[in-house]
């Protein structure tokens, strides 16, 4: 099949370059823009829940503050630090790819994954405590006090929002696993490391969502 190429001939084409692109620069630009547009859809997706939260928080301000007192501030704070650190190791991984240090790249990717797993582990501990305290919405929900229903609504948002965030973390760890495998097999070079950059964008986005969730859920009652 004849393939007409604009800027480089067939023999010059790098293996990572898909046939419908002219050069690596165009391909990389497309991948980056694609991820940014995807993150835009993610903002709108989480935006629906943030809107719902904002509405009910303004209507049931007292109950929501009450509910937030039942969250574990210590574990939440540790998790915030863990997640911000994972963003740092992600950036260092991108840098290692830029300068072509494969072992460092694999190391930082593994470290990022590890921090992500620590976050999920601590989240599981928190969820278990809520379950034991009968604070999971549904038929098992038990809460004494005049605002029981509204507190349950608070916990609906708590589990909905942090659950959706955790799902994104799990997907992110899956993506990192693929990257580690590819990096191990030496698929990246200072010329081509687009996948690491765009997974990095995703990881930072998930991190930023938590930066909004943490004060909204954990800190509102404690000024």
């Amino acid at each position, binding site marked *: 099949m004849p393939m007409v190429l604009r800027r480089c001939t067939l023999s010059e084409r790098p293996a990572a370059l898909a046939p419908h692109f002219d050069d690596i620069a165009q391909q990389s630009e*497309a991948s980056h823009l694609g991820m940014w547009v995807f993150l*835009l859809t993610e903002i709108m997706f*989480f935006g629906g829940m943030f809107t719902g939260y904002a509405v*009910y928080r303004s209507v*049931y301000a007292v109950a929501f503050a009450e509910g937030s007192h039942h969250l574990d501030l210590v574990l939440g704070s540790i998790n915030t630090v863990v997640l911000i650190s994972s963003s740092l190791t992600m950036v260092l991984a991108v840098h290692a790819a830029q300068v072509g240090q494969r072992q460092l790249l694999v190391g930082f990717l593994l470290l990022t994954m590890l921090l992500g797993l620590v976050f999920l582990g601590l989240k599981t501990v928190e969820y278990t405590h809520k379950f034991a305290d009968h604070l999971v919405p549904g038929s098992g929900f038990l809460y004494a006090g005049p605002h029981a229903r509204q507190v*349950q609504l608070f916990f609906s948002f708590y589990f909905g929002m942090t659950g959706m965030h955790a799902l994104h973390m799990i997907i992110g760890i899956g993506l990192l696993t693929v990257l580690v495998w590819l990096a191990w097999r030496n698929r990246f070079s200072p010329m081509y490391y687009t996948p690491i950059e765009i997974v990095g964008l995703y990881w930072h986005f998930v991190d930023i969502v938590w930066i909004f969730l943490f004060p909204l859920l954990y800190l509102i009652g404690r000024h």
Partner: protein
Amino acid sequence: MNPVVIPRAHYLNVNYGIKAWLFTTDHKRIALLYLASITLLFFVGGAAAVVMRLELLTPQGDLVQSETYNKLFTMHGVIMVWFFLIPSIPAVLGNFLVPLMIGARDLAFPRLNLLSWYIFALGALFTLTAVVTGGVDTGWTFYTPYSSTYANTHVILTVLGVFITGFSSILTGLNFIVTIHTMRVPGLTWSRLPLFIWAHYATSLIMVLGTPVLAIAIVLVALERVFRIGIFDPALGGDPVLFQHLFWFYSHPAVYIMILPAMGVISELIPCFARKRIFGYNFVAFSSVAIAVLGFFVWGHHMFVSSQSVYASMVFSFMSMLVAIPSAIKVFNWTATLYKGSIAYDTPMLYAFGFIGLFTIGGLTGLFLAALAVDVHVHDTYFVIAHFHYIMVGGAVMGYLGGLHFWWPKITGRMYPEGWGKLAALIIFIGFNLTFFPQFLLGYLGMPRRYHFYPAEFQVLHVMSSAGASILGVGYMIPLVYFIWSLRYGAVAGPNPWGAKGLEWQTSSPPPTDNFAQTPEVKEEAYAYGPQEVHVV
């Protein structure tokens, strides 16, 4: 080169077999996968409408009772909106044409494109399963608390289908945005882009920004139904109206997902068949973006009687009326393009004329509905039904059919029979108006939507509407037959049967798999139809 020979190698004959199609990443083949799927779903959705129109021939409920009727209009709405209209022009014509029109070899993410079709098919499968296992009766809007608490039908299965298919339109929109930004050939600046591309860019923005909100609204309904978390349940402190906000935040812009691509098609047809440059290119281009942006601030006009604050209603009413400005800009510019043009009345152009007239009626009645006082009178009546069918069927479907006829020679390499084409266009136009114009009158007189029985005084208008629907049904069957016929017996089209401008006409018909034998270069504005050029077929 002899122009009337099918090229030896093209995207359709490069390889054969079911695998070659199901694992293709060629945007042109994926467009045809979509074409086959949505055509099937169109006739499924249409079948529901047939039963409804039959039932409405008489004032009593005789053919079906309320329960079945509720399921019928829900199925008709869900399938037609999410599984036909939203993917229609973008996923079929857009998929086929966006890379060709900008001189690219494929969309930016070909595998994602294939994935979007699989996601669409999976969503359709869920919804069709819900239909055959007993149906769902909430109406296509899934209003809470009925959908979340009281309905005993297959709500979860249906909303899951809609949720899943939403991701296919997100992926399509994402692919279009990235492709249009990064893959234009040298010389094809933003101000030289075909208006079809501008329309699809605006549509993609809505797909990407609106659809995720529908997704989360649906997730919340499903959570509410399964776990009773109380977000939409007043008994647990929730508010059912919140669902309407989230739902219409997507579903009103979704109307523009349906109409903007059709407007893009019309902007291609009018200059070609009037042999004139489009009048006011910049205005037509930016009015698409304006409609997309304004569309996000009008959702509250669906909720004038849903306990929304009167001040909010006033703002939403005002914003809704603003949408009329960019819409009218388009209509006036198309009309101005026709002025002193050398107009040819081929089938695609007949659909374009149909579109302009019917869209104008649909748009103007939209202003009635955006006016607060009038809306209270005609809310939830057949007036609303007639209004949005003038936009969605009179507008979007007319645009889709016009585009399908216009690009059919490019897609298949063969012409459809022109005489039959004109006849079908005429039948569809007559059938459409006879079906839906009486519904304006019915609604104004007080006939509410979603009822299978009605007072005897409405019967004449209902019979007119049902008669029109049967004509419309015949009109839709004719192209189905002759399009299939033309695959084998149609006259060989050649690369550019319409003498049209635009990069897609510079390659052979059907195009080769990588679209262009030589990468084209753009040196002139879009629609550079010369003043002396005469139409030749």
